[in-house]
């Protein structure tokens, strides 16, 4: 049985190493925060905060305290605030151990497309290009296929790129794949999902 959104987030949380600084993207990646458990993880929000806390209680929202998804949040004792130039200095400078991001397409060489569908969706890349260029480990969390059932793990991306050769690991509803020499390697299947099913639903070269 394929993983649902929460199970994908829970699986993605296993990627985070104790004692590190992490950036979570919008969508399913945001849910990863619910599964960090006992690990000492500090969440960075690229609009200028380290040590992001949970959503506020009703009535305690602060308009001066939002995350990169523009949602109201709270601070923690270890929180530090800074400006956007400083925030991306630490991202670009390699101080963030891992970023968990959504994707529209991933290519077998680690190319990522997650910011634009020409003529249709022109919202912008936000901080995604900086994150994939600077963060040490980029984990993508995404559905294995699009709504039409077509593969999103491709030989080459068709959409404008966010970064070239930047993805390290992909967690889909069907399983976990790594970007390795020559293509993608299946490292884990969701319960009752077979490697063959993953192969059938993947256009990218599977090396194992």
């Amino acid at each position: 049985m394929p993983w649902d959104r929460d199970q994908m987030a829970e699986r993605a949380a296993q990627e985070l190493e104790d004692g590190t600084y992490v950036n979570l993207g919008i969508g399913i990646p945001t849910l990863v925060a619910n599964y960090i458990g006992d690990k000492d993880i500090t969440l960075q929000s690229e609009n200028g905060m380290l040590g992001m806390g949970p959503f506020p209680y009703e009535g305690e929202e602060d308009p001066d305290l939002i995350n990169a998804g523009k949602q109201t949040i709270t601070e923690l004792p270890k929180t530090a605030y800074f400006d956007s130039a400083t925030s991306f200095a630490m991202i670009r400078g390699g101080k963030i151990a891992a970023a968990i991001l959504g994707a529209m397409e991933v290519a077998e060489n680690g190319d990522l497309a997650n910011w634009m569908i020409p003529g249709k969706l022109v919202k912008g890349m936000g901080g995604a290009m900086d994150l994939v260029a600077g963060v040490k480990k980029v984990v993508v969390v995404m559905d294995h296929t699009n709504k039409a059932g077509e593969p999103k793990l491709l030989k080459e991306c068709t959409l404008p790129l966010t970064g070239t050769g930047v993805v390290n690991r992909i967690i889909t509803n069907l399983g976990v794949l790594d970007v390795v020499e020559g293509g993608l390697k299946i490292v884990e299947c969701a319960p009752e999902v077979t490697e063959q099913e993953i192969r059938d639903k993947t256009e990218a070269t599977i090396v194992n």
Partner: protein
Amino acid sequence: MKKVYGSAAEALDGLLRDDMLIAAGGFGLCGIPELLIDAIVDSGVKGLTVASNNAGVDDFGLGKLLATRQVKKMMSSYVGENAEFMRQYLSGELELEFNPQGTLAERMRAGGAGIAGFYTRTGYGTQIGEGKEVKKFGEDHYILEEGIFADLAIVKAWKADTSGNCVFRKTARNFNPPAAMCGKVCVMEVEEIVEPGELDPDAIHLPGIYVHRLIQGEHEKRIEKVTTRKKEAV
């Protein structure tokens, strides 16, 4: 030097002209210079290029300047919350220069710091890198991004003293310091103006040298996405 002005209109007097480049602070609707945007709408100045991470929403923030067609071009990283923006852009009425968020912040800081250009890996191999000089340092490819030198910066802080030293509050700091730095002139709106000595000199986020004109006012501080959790029953 007298930096404190009575209103946003007074503070902008003599600074606005058609086709100028304005850098604006704020992220989403958080920490935006609400009062100065309203005064620019009222001024009727047009053909503006605005460097701002976002473009507001349809009826608030920079969205107001888009609604009146005073903006010719945006330099932004994310404009997804503004339907009118999208309409103008897709119909070709509005130019848009996408900048990765960190590149935009760094370009502003660079302009303010006398750095004409810098090399970043961000955007290499993507359409953001097209037409830009590429240089290899070590094993990696970097693209050249240029500093932004704005004619005017409009920013919002929490408190400032009369010499312009100021502090921001929580994530409302965001693009305000780099935007302020890159303006030939910087006009700042704050929630409270205090006397010199009332702010801790070790805790100033932006020294007064970057702030040329200053107003105090009431801010709506609209929240774009209220997200909350329930209090657990004890």
